[in-house]
């Protein structure tokens, strides 16, 4: 698949608008998970790292490619882990979060 300069510019323009519109609707309460979630999304860079590393032809390229994959994998895995943890905590007053109930039970064993 080849993307020439103009096709690239179109992709960038449309993607930028999409990002702007999608985030424009997010309430302030979700800003931190959202920052973390968008941080996870650019972890896709790991795919580029794998491509570069598989095409490495000497020790220097292998070393830098290895670093790229380690860092990219860290971005993706860490970003996912913290975002899921944050978002699982959001519950409305109708639902009872599991972890809160569990923690209270540990703290007040006499009342359990």
């Amino acid at each position, binding site marked *: 698949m080849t993307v020439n300069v103009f096709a690239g510019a179109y992709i*960038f323009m449309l993607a930028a608008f999409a990002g702007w519109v999608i*985030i424009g609707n997010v309430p302030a309460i979700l*800003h931190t998970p959202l920052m973390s979630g968008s941080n996870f999304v650019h*972890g*896709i860079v790991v795919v580029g790292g794998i491509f570069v590393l598989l095409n490495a*032809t000497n020790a220097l390229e292998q070393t830098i*490619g290895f670093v790229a994959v380690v860092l990219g*994998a860290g971005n*993706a895995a860490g970003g996912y*882990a913290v975002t899921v943890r944050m978002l699982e905590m959001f519950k409305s007053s109708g639902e009872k979060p599991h972890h809160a109930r569990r923690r209270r039970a540990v703290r007040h064993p006499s009342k359990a």
Partner: protein
Amino acid sequence: MISQIVIAVTGFAAALLFMYGLKRMSSPATAASGIRVAGSGMLAAVLASFLYCFNVEPAAKPHLFVNLGLAIAALAIGGAIAWWSGKTVKMTAMPQMVAIYNGMGGGAAGAIAAVELFGNRASGDIQLVVTLFGALIGAISFSGSLIAWAKLDRILKEPLQFRGQQILNVVIVVAILAVGGSIVVAMSGGPHLLSIPGLICVFFGCALLFGILMTVPIGGADMPVVISIYNACTGIAVGLEGYVLQNPALMIAGMVVGAAGTLLTVLMAKAMNRTIFSVLFKHFGADKKRKRGAIIGSEKPVEASDAAIDMRYAKSVIIVPGYGLAVSQGQQKLYDFVKLLVAAGVSVKFAIHPVAGRMPGQMDVLLAEAGVPYDMIFQLADINDQFETTDVTLVIGANDVVNPAARSDKSSPIYGMPILNADKAKKVYVVKRGQGKGYSGVVNGLFYANNCFMVYGDAAAVLGKMIEAVKGLGSAAA
């Protein structure tokens, strides 16, 4: 051939799932499923990327097995460490972790660019220039994010400012442009002073240095904005390297984040009444020789139990949590205390300033962790009119976001920042560790106001005493 089609289709699906996932994250009800949608796209794209094995360049064929082994090892190492740290980090340390993961992404984009540059793989000048820009932004984001992490983690405590800093920054920018330009000239066969690898090393060195110098003078209060800027930067760097690698999934994901991160940065800066320019170049609290002048009165300390009993018999209470609550891990106790008040018939609301804590929305996350339903939590614009009709405001570990100087004192560095009108309630209790200043280093006139009383101590410890005091009342009445 089939492998290429699979990679292309997976990349398309990943881009689609990322955008759909982010869309679902825009509402608390669907947010948790949104990240899973995006995660499945990521997993598919990473697995499919191993199909590149069937299409490596001829020169790389003899190294394929070593490269494949390295790729799997790197994926396992980076993924496992980050996964483990992401699962175990305390909620209060979340902003630092986001800064680190973001720096890793920027570093990865920079490393990809380095391989392309050292291998002279760019086809044509445009690709070369795009590679260089991606390298520059990625490297700045990498070193800048690490400094932001060090600042948030309190490894670097004071903002580092020195004379001639701005001039040095300008010199480095000029150097980066000059070296970048000479790389382009050298690679298209023109004359050059250093060897091409030498030039590339200098280029990366300058970019990394610039990231550090940009971030060290910025004070802690502006760190949320800075992380958000670097988040957007990493996205743009990834998008640019995606173009170099001819990978539309990277281009779309990177640019969506670049735009989203930019919008988020603008929203955040607006909430603090600062422009992005002033965050980066006019350093917060740089003017340290301010007089304490205008403050009249004294801080009036009271016992935690007295404050608690007063709130128990109030009609309405608004709670303003801040970073001090997060530091002492008092959110669970705070909610236990709130439940006692609610059971006693007090109307309780939480008021969250857009930049409370070290990251926008961090307080929402902490309260959610404690189990506070999100319909009890109100944002600044929705609740600010209600302070005047409220009996008690309880400020816990917050300072700058309730400083009335932002409304009236034109000489204050936080003048013009929208604040929560905590001081307009009939009575204000402030829970605070000591008589120190806020994160911005500005004196808070609220603490000296006639209707304000101070409860000194660690937030969690104070809340423990408050719970006991209210419980004690309950048993006495029964």
